[in-house]
């Protein structure tokens, strides 16, 4: 039993590593496919005037070695936290990203938690009341909410709540007062509230569909019929039989939602000028800063891998059948 469980964890960790190595291989390939060579794009005039310097540079950075050796060097560099230099900031990519990562988490974490809770609650209710007016009403609303792109929700939210009603700031993360009085957490919250709400709103439908479908599938199971036949109270069927089983697959869905969140935050942060990874992505895109973009991509991969890994462990805890079985 114990060795089987270890084997399962071992498999998951190997899988996570594999995903990361593939992501790193992609970024390595992209760097090498980049038009022109590195020195040419970094110091264009110097390379033309002084070819010897160019050679020296290549030798210094190992660009003259065989490609396999460069690849291995690249992998070990990444694993040691050396993710290259941003063209635009002239600073190590990893430093630039970790500084912004915190700001992104400030809006992504609450948005994930809120949207998952709301999606599960509304989805479960809708599935349980399947066929009722409320269910149809909720389903149609969710189809509508989900079909509107997140950037459009963001623009509308600014237009209504910030521009017309003046309830929230137009963007940014602190007021100008911060220059004199330092960063005030309540002020930051005031700025973060609208982005969080928009990100939550645009992420609810995904969780909602899955929860509603999962609920419908569970309600069709034999044990629900048995419980009804036994005369169990409807409320107890919902709480003890339906809800628990319907929520199991949601753990995996939530980790999939994570990638969706990252994508969503690129748009939301850009529109709200929120200084996180999303806005950094937008800046890197405008400046065509490839090393920085690759770093962002690697960091996004890491976040998704971490979410998957946590989901796997939670799933194992929640459902004993998975723990020893051969998991796909």
């Amino acid at each position, binding site marked *: 039993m114990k060795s089987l469980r270890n084997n399962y964890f071992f498999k998951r960790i190997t*899988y996570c590593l*594999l*995903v990361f190595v*593939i*992501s790193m291989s*992609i*970024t390595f390939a*992209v760097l090498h*496919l*980049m038009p022109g060579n590195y020195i040419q794009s970094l110091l264009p005039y110097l390379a033309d005037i002084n070819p010897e310097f160019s050679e020296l540079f290549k030798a210094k950075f190992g660009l003259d070695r065989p490609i396999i050796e460069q690849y291995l060097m690249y992998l070990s560099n990444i694993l040691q936290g050396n993710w290259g230099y941003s063209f635009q900031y002239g600073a190590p990519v990893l430093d630039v990203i970790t500084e912004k990562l915190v700001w992104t988490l400030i809006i992504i974490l609450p948005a994930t938690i809120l949207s998952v809770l709301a999606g599960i609650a509304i989805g479960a209710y809708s599935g349980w009341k*399947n*066929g*009722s*007016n*409320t*269910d*149809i*009403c909720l389903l*149609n609303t969710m*189809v*509508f909410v*989900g*079909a*509107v*792109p997140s*950037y*459009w929700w963001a*623009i509308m939210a*600014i*237009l209504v709540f910030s*521009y017309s009603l003046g309830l929230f700031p*137009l963007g940014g993360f602190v007021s100008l007062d911060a220059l004199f009085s330092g960063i005030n957490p309540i002020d930051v919250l005031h700025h973060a509230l609208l982005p969080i709400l928009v990100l939550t709103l645009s992420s609810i439908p995904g969780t909602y569909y899955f929860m509603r*479908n999962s609920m*419908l*599938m569970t309600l*069709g199971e034999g044990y*629900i019929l048995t419980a009804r036949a036994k005369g169990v109270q409807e409320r107890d069927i919902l709480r003890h039989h339906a809800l628990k089983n319907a929520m199991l697959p949601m753990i995996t869905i939530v980790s*999939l939602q994570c*990638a969706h969140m*990252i*994508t969503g935050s*690129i*748009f939301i942060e*850009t*529109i709200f000028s929120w200084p996180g990874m999303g806005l950094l*992505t*937008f800046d890197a*895109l*405008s400046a*065509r800063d*490839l090393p920085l*973009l*690759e770093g*962002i*991509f690697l960091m996004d*991969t890491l976040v*998704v*891998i971490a979410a*998957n890994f946590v989901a796997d462990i939670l799933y194992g805890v929640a459902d004993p059948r998975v723990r020893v079985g051969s998991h*796909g």
Partner: protein
Amino acid sequence: MAWQILASGWDLMDREIFFRAGLAIIGSAMLIAIFAPFLTAYAPDEFCGMPLSEPSSDHLLGTNDLGQDIFSRLIYGTRATLIIGFLGALIGVATGTLIGTVAGYYGGRTDEVISRFMDVMMTIPAFPLLLVLSVLLSPGIYVISLLMGLLGGSHSGRVIRSQVLSIAETNHILGSRALGLSDAYIMARHILPNIMPLITVKYVFSAQAFMLMGVGLGFLGIGDVSVIDWGQMINHAYSSGAFALGMWWWIGPPGLAVTVLSIGLAMIGFGLEERLNPRLSHRNVEATA
């Protein structure tokens, strides 16, 4: 209660009407895209009026900061948006069908390898990767569609695989195998027709997702600059201060247009899905519960 009247109204209208409304929206968008030159008075790139003029009979939606007619640009922009959505979905679903069918039909080791590959592809965040590749290649809309399709193919591949897996076990497939028909023939003539409804639903939802993604790329300023697309229109209006000037007719229409198309595709998709899987339909609730 307004809520209940609204809900019963929806019930009366039935999902079928939503499905038809979706078809009507997408159908008219296609007609608009094809007949764009006949619907507009100005070429989309023509500097035809005073910059930043308000909507008038000459310029239905006013002009942008360069004096281009916003209505013309909106109409012509339908083309790129539809092409990215439908072409991307075609490539994505074709890729997914191919690998999903092969994995599900052969099973065993082939299935194992392909499934692991799809797992890896689904873990890697597709949109950031798409951004990296777009900056590297600065692709046109056809290459963008291709990239999106290839990166997103695993999502449909996984669903199609599990469907094929169960079909491959049915008697008529086993019978065809016993008759000695070739694998390619069985997959094309006996399995494909069976998964066609599923593929259609996947296609519609992929088209919706890729269309939003394509407009999103334009919005982030890395679309194909040689075409007019709604994302670039929003981006341009947004960064030129349409907000601060209160010019809703500049920033509003392209966003509204993509929202309407997206809702249209969603209505078609959900309508199809309900026909395909009666268990999801609210009508059969008593039968399943």
